């Protein structure tokens, strides 16, 4: 470029070459590289999806990830309030590799930490925050606008398994995600719990893993194993608890109860009743195949849906519905819909071959439904089916899908029955024998009374003797003699007293004795001093010794 060089080398070719020197490759490469970097960055950012949620709780722009089966496929970029101010719209940047997840039917929901006694799921979300789970649908791609789910959906329909519905009177502690056990082994779980407002029942959507779906058959009973069961029996108290986990989190078990019939396989969507406990399940070994309608002309207070329908104490069905909507207008009788298992009934009734017309035949033979009190404590009623002797002949009627079993009024007829049974009981009492025994007892009492009377006579005689004895003169004088004797005793005692003669003599004698003792003492003293005085006398000694001095 320097001018000197140019002037020295004036060749055009050189100049041309210099103008396009190889140095210019650098910015060219740089431009291409930089452009490629920027393009790649934006290309790699992937597609945007807009998902609408009710709230953006625990979703954070730039942080919350979108995952599909725990694989990160995108990230939330922006959260904005929707125009209607009732929801939020999250902008999700889906990784370009996963762009085909955005298709029709894809479902998105927020996974938040959930810690329960049985499982701790989404623990990582406690620290990392919630994430959005994406479940790819099978619709056409690409779709960029979604409505997010507020609740995690039930297991994807793509996952093989059995989907059942359990219906229960009471939800208990069975909740979504509670396990379903088969002989204590977890084979599935509750996916959703909903309240069926129309029927006032709780419905559970249950998913049974594909591996275990064969275990569920027609006739399978489901029961709640959440609680602790305490039964008091002849052998004391028995406490049975489910697994600790089921106790805490709730759970349900199923099996075909003993004596029950394990039917064919069930299909998706089959509805089962969820019993409150195993006992209730065991008592209900029947497959209801008939829906019957009963019309009661009395109050059904105490009869609830699910109440048992029994044939001579064996449950063969249950009450399904109590509602006036089944009764023709103007009919004030209470219609009760029950479902019963006619097979069980057929087994119990003689000479029924055509199982299709069991009910018809039974009703012809006098099968009637009555309301009976199941528990005096609660006043709960159940429907009792039984052959009523002497019932008015009736036929099985039909009303739509229901068969109408005639009922027996539990008012008069039942009272009559009860009176009859009481009378027959009285009749059967062994009255004669009892009366005979009464006679014997009376005889024995008479004998006893006689004995008692003679004893009393003897006692009277003894008393008379005693009286006589007391009345005699000797007996009367005893007191005077006693008095005299006492007087003498008193005088002798008083003579002994300080003024008495005896005592005066005694003191005199004592004085003399004292004087004698004194004399003896003098004697013994003089002997001690001069033993020879015994021989020589007191004055025999020449040596006068002043005795007083010595003393």
């Amino acid at each position: 470029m320097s001018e000197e060089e140019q002037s020295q080398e004036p060749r055009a070719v050189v100049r041309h070459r210099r103008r396009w020197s190889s140095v210019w490759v650098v910015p060219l490469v740089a431009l291409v590289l930089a452009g490629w970097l920027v393009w790649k960055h934006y290309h790699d950012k992937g597609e945007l999806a807009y998902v609408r949620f009710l709230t953006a709780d625990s979703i954070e722009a730039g942080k919350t990830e979108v995952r599909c089966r725990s694989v990160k496929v995108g990230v939330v970029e922006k959260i904005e309030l929707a125009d209607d101010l009732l929801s939020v719209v999250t902008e999700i940047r889906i990784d370009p590799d996963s762009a085909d997840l955005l298709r029709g039917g894809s479902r998105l929901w927020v996974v938040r930490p959930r810690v329960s006694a049985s499982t701790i799921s989404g623990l990582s979300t406690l620290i990392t925050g919630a994430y959005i789970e994406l479940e790819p649908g099978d619709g056409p791609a690409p779709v960029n606008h979604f409505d997010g789910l507020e609740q995690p959906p039930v297991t994807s329909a793509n996952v093989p398994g059995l989907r059942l519905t359990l219906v229960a009177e009471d939800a208990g502690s069975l909740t979504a995600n509670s396990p379903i056990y088969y002989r204590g082994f977890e084979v599935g779980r509750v996916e959703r719990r909903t309240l069926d407002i129309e029927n006032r029942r709780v419905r559970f959507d249950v998913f049974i893993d594909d591996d275990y779906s064969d275990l569920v058959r027609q006739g399978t009973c489901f029961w709640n194993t959440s609680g602790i069961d305490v039964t008091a029996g002849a052998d004391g108290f028995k406490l049975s608890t489910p697994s600790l986990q089921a106790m805490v989190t709730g759970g349900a078990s199923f099996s075909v109860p003993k004596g029950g019939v394990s039917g064919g396989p069930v299909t998706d969507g089959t509805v089962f009743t969820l019993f409150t406990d195993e006992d209730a399940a065991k008592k209900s070994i029947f497959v209801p195949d008939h829906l019957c309608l009963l019309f009661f002309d009395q109050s059904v207070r105490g009869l609830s849906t699910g109440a048992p329908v029994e044939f001579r104490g064996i449950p063969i069905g249950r009450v399904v519905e109590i509602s006036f909507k089944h009764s023709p207008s103007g009919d004030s009788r209470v219609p009760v819909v029950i479902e019963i298992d006619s097979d069980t009934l057929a087994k119990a009734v003689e000479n029924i071959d055509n199982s299709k017309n069991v009910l018809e035949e039974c009703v012809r033979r006098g099968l009637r439904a009555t309301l009976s009190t199941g528990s005096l404590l609660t006043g709960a009623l159940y429907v009792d089916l039984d052959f009523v002797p002497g019932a008015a002949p009736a036929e099985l009627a039909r009303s739509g899908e229901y068969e109408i079993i005639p009922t027996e009024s539990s008012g008069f007829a039942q009272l009559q029955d009860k009176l009859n049974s009481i009378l027959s009981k009285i009749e059967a009492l062994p009255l004669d024998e009892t009366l005979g025994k009464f006679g014997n007892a009376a005889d024995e009492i008479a004998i006893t009374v006689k004995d008692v009377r003679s004893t009393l006579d003897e006692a009277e005689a003894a008393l008379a003797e005693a009286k006589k004895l007391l009345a005699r003169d000797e007996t009367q004088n005893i007191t005077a003699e006693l008095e005299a004797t006492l007087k003498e005793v008193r005088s002798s005692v008083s003579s002994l007293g300080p003024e008495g003669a005896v005592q005066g003599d005694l003191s005199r004698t004592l004085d003399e004795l004292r004087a004698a003792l004194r004399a003896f003492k003098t004697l013994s003293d003089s002997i001690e001093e001069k033993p020879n005085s015994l021989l020589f006398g007191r004055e025999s000694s020449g040596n006068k010794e002043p005795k007083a001095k010595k003393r």
Partner: protein
Amino acid sequence: MSEIRSAADEGLASCHLCGKVSPVADEHCPRCGSRLHLRKPHSLERTWSFLIAAMAFYLPANLLPIMNVAGLGGNSRDTIMSGVINFWKKGDFLVAGIIFSASIMIPILKMIALIWLCLAAKGFATASPKNLARLYHVTELVGRWSMVDVFVVAVLVCLVQMGIISTVTPGPAILSFALVVVLTMFSAMSFDPRLFWDRHEKDAAGGSPATP
């Protein structure tokens, strides 16, 4: 200014390698044998090309995330500018200022300065050679210090690898940023400040702009 006589006027060239001044007619340095030029050959051309390359990389350097911090709090990808803004918002004005000046202001000023120098060498901008020389000096001196960012990221990437708790990975911008710094340094290095006074002498002589 014509009383100052430059080496070029005497036909003397300093060796690029060892600095020995020899007559340019020798073509090769008698001491080290490298080629002799009066001025750096293709100086402006090289400066421009490196400068353009640097400017090309300046865009991705600022648009793309420079650092990925993945950890318990989730992922954060910061570009240089968003990092500066974050620091500013947190109240770390000093850190924000340092990063801003080292990573955004200095590269930009450097490029502007180089453009200006190139234009001045061509005679499209007027300034005293003294000021231009000072500008060039500052440009070359300060240039390498904007590598600070690259070092910071490199150090962080080495130090912060704690798995789930926190992991720092370099973003695509860091390469572009390093290239910006390196290319501006090349650009500044390949510029020959002696072109100023050649130009100045020409102007003073009343000559027309130099023919390349």
